[in-house]
C-alpha cells in the first residue's frame, strides 16, 4: 500500500496500556502541542480531561433540531388541518391539538435523531476515507488493542526529533513516522 513516494507527515507513539496513554496525553497537553490527537480502539473515559478537549456541542445541536421539528409539526398539522384545507372530522375542533400531540412528538424525535446522525458524521469528521493512519498501517493496531498519540507536522512548526524525545520521555517504546501516500487522490474509488 505504501511505495517510495510516501512522505512523512507526522509522528505516532503507540502504547499497549491505557494508563500509560492517559498519562502521556496529560504530558503532551501540558507541553502545549497543537495538531495532536489520541487514537483508541474504544472510548477511554477521562481521556478528554487528560487531553484538554472542550465539551462537545452535539447536545445543543440535537436539542435545537428537535425544537425545529416540533415547530414544523405544529405548523404542519395546524396549517394543513385548520387553515389550508379545513375539514371537520369526527366532531373534533379544527385545531384539535390533543390529536396532534403524537405527531408533535414523533417529528421532535425524528429531527433530533437526524441531527444526531449528521453530528456524528460532521463532528467526527467522517466521510474522509483516506488518511495517513490508514496508509501507515497503524489503523490495524488501533482498531484492535493498541493506543496511539498522533502528531501531524505538515505545517513544520515542530521537529520530529523533539516529538520523538518527548514520546520517549513518556515511556513510549514504539515510535513510528506517520506516512502519507503522495500521489493518492482523495476520492474513495
Amino acid at each position: 500500500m505504501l511505495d517510495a513516494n510516501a512522505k512523512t507527515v507526522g509522528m505516532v507513539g503507540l502504547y499497549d496500556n491505557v494508563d500509560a496513554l492517559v498519562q502521556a496525553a496529560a504530558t503532551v497537553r501540558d507541553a502545549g502541542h497543537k495538531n495532536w490527537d489520541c487514537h483508541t480502539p474504544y472510548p477511554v473515559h477521562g481521556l478528554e480531561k487528560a487531553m484538554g478537549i472542550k465539551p462537545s456541542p452535539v447536545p445543543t445541536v440535537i436539542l435545537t433540531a428537535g425544537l425545529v421539528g416540533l415547530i414544523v409539526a405544529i405548523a404542519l398539522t395546524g396549517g394543513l388541518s385548520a387553515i389550508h384545507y379545513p375539514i371537520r372530522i369526527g366532531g373534533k375542533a379544527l385545531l384539535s391539538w390533543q390529536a396532534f400531540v403524537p405527531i408533535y412528538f414523533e417529528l421532535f424525535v425524528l429531527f433530533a435523531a437526524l441531527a444526531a446522525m449528521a453530528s456524528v458524521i460532521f463532528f467526527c469528521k467522517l466521510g474522509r476515507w483516506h488518511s495517513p493512519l490508514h496508509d501507515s498501517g497503524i489503523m490495524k493496531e488501533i482498531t484492535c488493542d493498541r493506543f496511539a498519540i498522533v502528531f501531524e507536522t505538515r505545517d513544520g512548526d515542530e521537529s520530529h526529533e523533539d516529538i520523538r524525545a518527548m514520546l520517549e520521555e513518556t515511556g513510549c517504546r514504539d515510535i513510528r513516522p506517520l506516512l502519507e501516500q503522495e500521489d493518492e487522490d482523495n476520492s474513495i474509488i
Partner: protein
Amino acid sequence: MNTEHAASKAGLAGAPAPSPTLVRLAGILTLLGIALSVPALLGEADRTRFGFAYLWSFVGLWSVVLGSLFFVGLQHLTGSIWSVVIRRTAEMLAGSMWLVALLFLPLLLFGIFFDQFHLFPWVDESNVAGSHLLQEKQPYLNATFFTVRAAVFFAAWIAFAAYFVRTSLEMDHGRAPADAGGALRRAAGPFTLIFALTATFAGIDWIMSLDPYWFSTIFGVYIFSGMVVASLAAITIAVVCLRESGRLRRDVVTDDHLYSLGVLMFVFVCFWAYIAFSQYMLIWYANMPEETAYLHNRLQGNWLAVSIALALVRFVVPFFALLSRRAKMNPRILFWVSIWLLAGQLLDLYWLIMPELHDHHPVLGWQELGPPLLMTGALLWYVSRFLARHAPMAIGDPLLDQSLSFRL
C-alpha cells in the same frame, strides 16, 4: 464479624441525634392543624369540606409513604448499588406506614360508617336505591368489603414496611441473620406484585369511587406514577436536608448519587405526563358519555385553570428544570424542584378529589388547611423521632462499600 463491619462504617454517617428544630416545626404545624380543624368540624357545611380535605391530605401522605416503600422494595429487587447510601431516608418514610393506618381510621369511621363527611355517594342508601348502576356495583362498593379491603391493604403494607425497615436497622448493629441481603431480595419480588395490586385497588376505592359512575382502567397506573414522583421528591428533600445539616457526609452521598435521584425523578415526571396524556386523550377522543362526564367536570368553569396548571406544574416546569445534567446534580435545584413536585402531587390529588364536592369552582379556604398541616406535622414528628434513634444511612448494608465508590 458483622458487628465489627458495622462499627467500622459508623463514622460514615452522623450518629442518631434529636433535632430540636424539626420537633419544634412538627409541633407548630400539628397545633396549627388542630386549631383549624376543630372549628371546621363543628359546622355542618364545613364538616363536609373538612372531610374532603382530610381525604385529600390523607391520600397525599399515603402516596409519599407507600411510594417510599415501593422505592425500598425496588432497590432490593434490582440489587441496586448506587441507592444504598440514600436508602435509609426511604426506609424512614416507609416506616411510618402504621401512622398512615392510624390516620385512616377517622376516615373509615366518619367517612363510611357514620357518613358524616358525605364523601362516597355509594355509602348513602338513598343514592343506591335510586341508581340501577350503583345497585349493580353493590357487591364491590359496600361498607363491609371496603373495610376488609383497607384492612388487607394496610396489613400487607405494614408487614412489608416492618420487615424491610427492621432488617435494615438490624444490619446497622450487625444483628441481622447472615443471609439477610438475599432474604430481602427474595421478599422484594412478591412485594412488588402485591404492591401493584393493592395500590391500584386502594386508588380505586379511595379516589375513583368518589364518582362511582366513572371508571378508567389506567387509573391505577396514574396513581402509581404520581405516587412515585411524590415519594422521590420526599426522599430527595430528606437527603438534601440531611446532607446540608452535615449528618450525611458530602463525600459519602456524592453528586453522582444525587444525579441518580434526579434522573429517576425526571424519568417519572415524564412517565406521569405520558400516563396522564394517554388517559385524557383516549377519553377525549372516544367521547363516550359514561367516561367524559368526569373530564367535563374538570374542564368547566374555573376548574379549567386548575387542569392547565396541573399540566404545567406536574410536567412542563419540572421537565425543563431537570433537563440539564448540571441541574440533576445541584442539591439546591433538586430541593426546590422536589418541594414543587410535592405541591404538584397535592394539586393533582386536589384535581382528582375536590370537583366531586365543588363543581365549577375550586375552593380553598381555612377549612381545607387543617388536615394537611396536621398530617405534615405528624410526619415530621415521626421523622424527628426516627432520626433521634437511628443512623441516617444504612451503615450495615453488605453493598455499602460498592455504593460508596459508585461513580457515573
